């Protein structure tokens, strides 16, 4: 007991004398790339950068506890949809300036912007697309419209094989069809998203949800469809078409499934109209309460934001690229991993960033309720969507 107290005391004492250095919280995969750039930074600047591995799911919640107390890391690596909440809490430092701004895709920078300021430096983006099993769908019958997909899937379905299945009650996966017809979550304005203007019960949204409902009514998607079911069926080669993201394809490759990817940019709802998926963006954010803000900004902007920094991140994590110059180089390489990246990036090119304002928390549950009611034929499309919008408005009021 006594020993313990002495040790605890010494640790606490020592921790208050630590000299200036940068601390980065990132997930496991990113550690090698960050450490490489950190060594360069240390050489050039004489400031140590400590890369700490934290589970992705814990980074935001731990940051929310540590940062207000004036502790925690100087830099976090995380998802763009944290920005609204963290910036509103006053915990993020806006980036004053990034060199070679034009090299970045707009969608990636837009995702990290909140209230007209840029709160993070992106390094990866991801989006979902339609994935099909090449053993069931021949190369020459890959659909280019949703109607074609429906008829092919209906033809192929039998007692065992499912033509088309995805996690339809999940708003994330159903959003592309809702947004494709003109539904939107929050209206985009010059200085950010307007949470008072919700477009989830407009004509386009209703059209999209009706389409989703028709898939259940015609028996295309089995009732009770969810993510685990879809994933399981596809891995066993029992599903022809699914909707999923780049995180799933390595698993399908390992399972020996010969799959192809149809980006949403190459399948039409109606002539000239494609589904619009959410785009999620990963990046570096800076703690506004950091004592080494200046150095943190320099590390993020000059090192992680450089072509080499972005390439190092891509080498350890094969995710969608946010810089056009790097994309061009990678595109030329070829190979199954690169094929995935190219297809999912194409899908992202017609997508829209997932709203990063805290009000988004109210949307998921409400829309999931609406989708469930419609899919289970317990309510009409318009009624369910009107109720969902009411719920969202009441929650964010």
């Amino acid at each position: 007991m006594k020993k313990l107290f002495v040790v605890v005391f010494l640790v606490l004492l020592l921790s208050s004398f630590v000299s200036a250095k940068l601390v980065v919280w990132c997930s496991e995969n990113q550690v090698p790339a960050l450490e490489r750039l950190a060594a360069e930074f240390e050489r050039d600047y004489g400031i140590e950068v400590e890369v700490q591995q934290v589970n992705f799911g814990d980074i935001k919640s731990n940051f929310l506890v540590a940062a207000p107390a004036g502790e925690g890391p100087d830099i976090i690596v995380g998802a763009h949809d944290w920005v609204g909440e963290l910036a509103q809490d006053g915990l993020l430092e806006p980036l004053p300036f990034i060199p070679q701004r034009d090299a970045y895709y707009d969608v990636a920078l837009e995702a990290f912007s909140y209230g007209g300021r840029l709160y993070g430096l992106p390094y990866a983006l991801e989006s979902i697309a339609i994935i099909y099993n090449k053993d069931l769908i021949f190369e020459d019958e890959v659909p280019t419209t949703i109607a074609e997909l429906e008829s092919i899937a209906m033809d192929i379905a039998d007692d065992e094989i499912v033509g088309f299945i995805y996690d339809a009650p999940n708003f994330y996966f159903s959003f592309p069809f809702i947004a494709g017809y003109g539904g939107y979550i929050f209206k985009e304005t010059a200085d950010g998203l307007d949470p008072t203007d919700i477009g989830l019960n407009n004509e386009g949204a209703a059209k999209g949800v009706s389409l989703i409902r028709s898939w259940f009514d015609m028996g295309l998607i089995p009732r009770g469809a969810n993510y685990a079911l879809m994933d399981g069926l596809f891995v066993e080669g029992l599903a022809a078409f699914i909707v999923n993201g780049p995180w799933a394809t390595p698993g399908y490759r390992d399972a020996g499934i010969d799959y192809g990817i149809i980006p949403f940019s190459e399948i039409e709802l109606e002539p000239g109209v494609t589904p619009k998926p959410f785009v999620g963006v990963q990046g570096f954010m800076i703690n506004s309460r950091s004592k080494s803000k200046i150095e943190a900004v320099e590390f993020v902007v000059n090192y992680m934001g450089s072509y080499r920094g972005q390439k190092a991140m891509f080498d350890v994590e094969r995710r969608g690229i946010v810089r056009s110059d790097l994309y061009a180089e990678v595109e030329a390489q070829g190979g199954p991993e690169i094929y995935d990246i190219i297809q999912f990036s194409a899908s992202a090119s017609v997508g829209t960033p997932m709203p990063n304002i805290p009000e988004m928390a109210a949307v998921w549950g409400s829309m999931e309720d609406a989708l469930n009611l419609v899919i289970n034929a317990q309510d009409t499309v318009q009624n369910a969507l009107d109720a969902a919008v009411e719920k969202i408005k009441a929650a964010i009021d």
Partner: protein
Amino acid sequence: MTVKKLIILMLVIAFLAIFNAFMVWSIFVLYMDGRFSLMVVLVILTVMIDLFVLNPKGYPYRYMIPALVLLFILTLYPMYYTFEVAFTNFGTGHLFTRQEVVQRLLNDYFYVPEDPTEYDFSIFLRIRDYKPTDEFIILFERVDDGKEFFSARPLAEARDNQGNIISAAGTLHEGMQNNVEIGDRSYRIVRDPDTQRVITLVADTGEAYQYFYAPKDPDMSANAPHFISEIRGKWLRNAEFIDEAGNMLRLSPQTLYRTFATIERQYGLRTITDFSGQRPEQITVVYNRETDNNLTERDGAFFDIDDFGREFSVMGYISNVGFRQFRRLLEDPRVRGPFFSIFSWTFTWAGLSVLFSFVMGLALAITLNDRLLKGKKLYRTLLIIPWAIPSFISVLVWKNGLFNETYGILNRFLVTGLFGAEPIRWLGDAFWARVSVLMVNTWLGFPYMMTVCLGALQSIPDEFYEAASIDGASKVQQFGRITFPLLMVTIAPLLVGSFAFNFNNFVGIFLLTEGGPPIPGATTPAGSTDILISYTYKLAFYGRGQDFGFASAISIIIFAIVAGFSWLNFKVSRSFEEVSR
């Protein structure tokens, strides 16, 4: 013996001294951070522990110290904290105290004026014993006209509690061709004859300052680490220089700190006369120095007006909102509307969960208790399994493997397979979803009931049954007159406890249905299987970020309901008195 005692005493005192030093230090840290409530808890704890150890009369209480520490830290303080938070707006956007927010508005917000003046800079350093020091002179070169200004090392005006400079100030002095006056000292300027660049500054007292570093001079990049850690990191990071026009210069973020530029603080403090009260009053307000607009404060946040004349929230702070969170609970139509249906379902859910798992557990316990049964141990082990598997896993198996409408075992093999009926929408229909959650919860709960019943059954003496059978009582009579009443003495308080647990069994609901299926046409997030705790969780955390104040108010109310109900239950069943006798 006495030596041994002396050593023990010395050890105790040494231990106590270390403990006290640690506590005093913690208390001091908490005081500095302004966290007074936890500080008070630690003060009370320290005093009590010291008294118990030093006062001979307090000797018996020594053994309570570990329990006491845990009671304070794990039970009383969190309760107190919950109460405290329930009266504030603590949550997303309101994480800091007002004082901290004002400090940050004054220190962290800057704006670049219309046409900023930009200065390149170079550092001239004193070298002592061939080693760079942190004594330096800084040369500013105005980008517009190339004019040169000099400043001595800025003076530290404020430091934080770790000794880091958080504010430093200096003044620019225009330099001549060959000399410059900085304050009361004069320096001779040595220039490179070819480029006219300043190489060395020599003070009239003889010290020389050598050209050391300039951000835009690649020849000097080898000196960057020393500049960054010793010069910029310590002295220039928070330094402000006043130029000849009286403008403030800071390291410019726009060039990533490679130049200085005129940058103004966005917010300042000023005193205004407020006429809104009964009589004019002098108050201090935060104002926007760029637009000259006074910030307004309401709902625990500062509001400013943007370029388009629209109001926006700059930063929120934790403010005391009195009973507002509780009033919200009573007045919010989202709470009031579905409250009674949720409330009655919560009671039904908790009551039926207890009833079903108890009946099932008791029946199995009686079976297992039968002397004629073979392989008891095996059965008992198997029946404990639902309890032993983490519910996070088993509930997922129920959800996807058993209840799925198309692929679940129940529908595929029983309902449509065996009976040829229409598939049941287990989790999609309000009634069946309730049946489903009760089924799963019974499955999860019966092993516990079975275990306690088994124990209680074994404690009933066999003589009672012998006497009863001699008197000619049937098995049913024996159960009704002997087993059940004696069982209830032990089990009744556990049933009450189980009821209270299920009343708040968030996991049981959330893992399976997340409160769903939704109610058609409802404008609240309430679903058919939502119980109080799961519904209020949705209200507090599925709205605009995290609302800890509201969540705390809710937990206090739920605590009151559960405590009140448990108390009533103990009273009515009078089992409490039975046990305590």
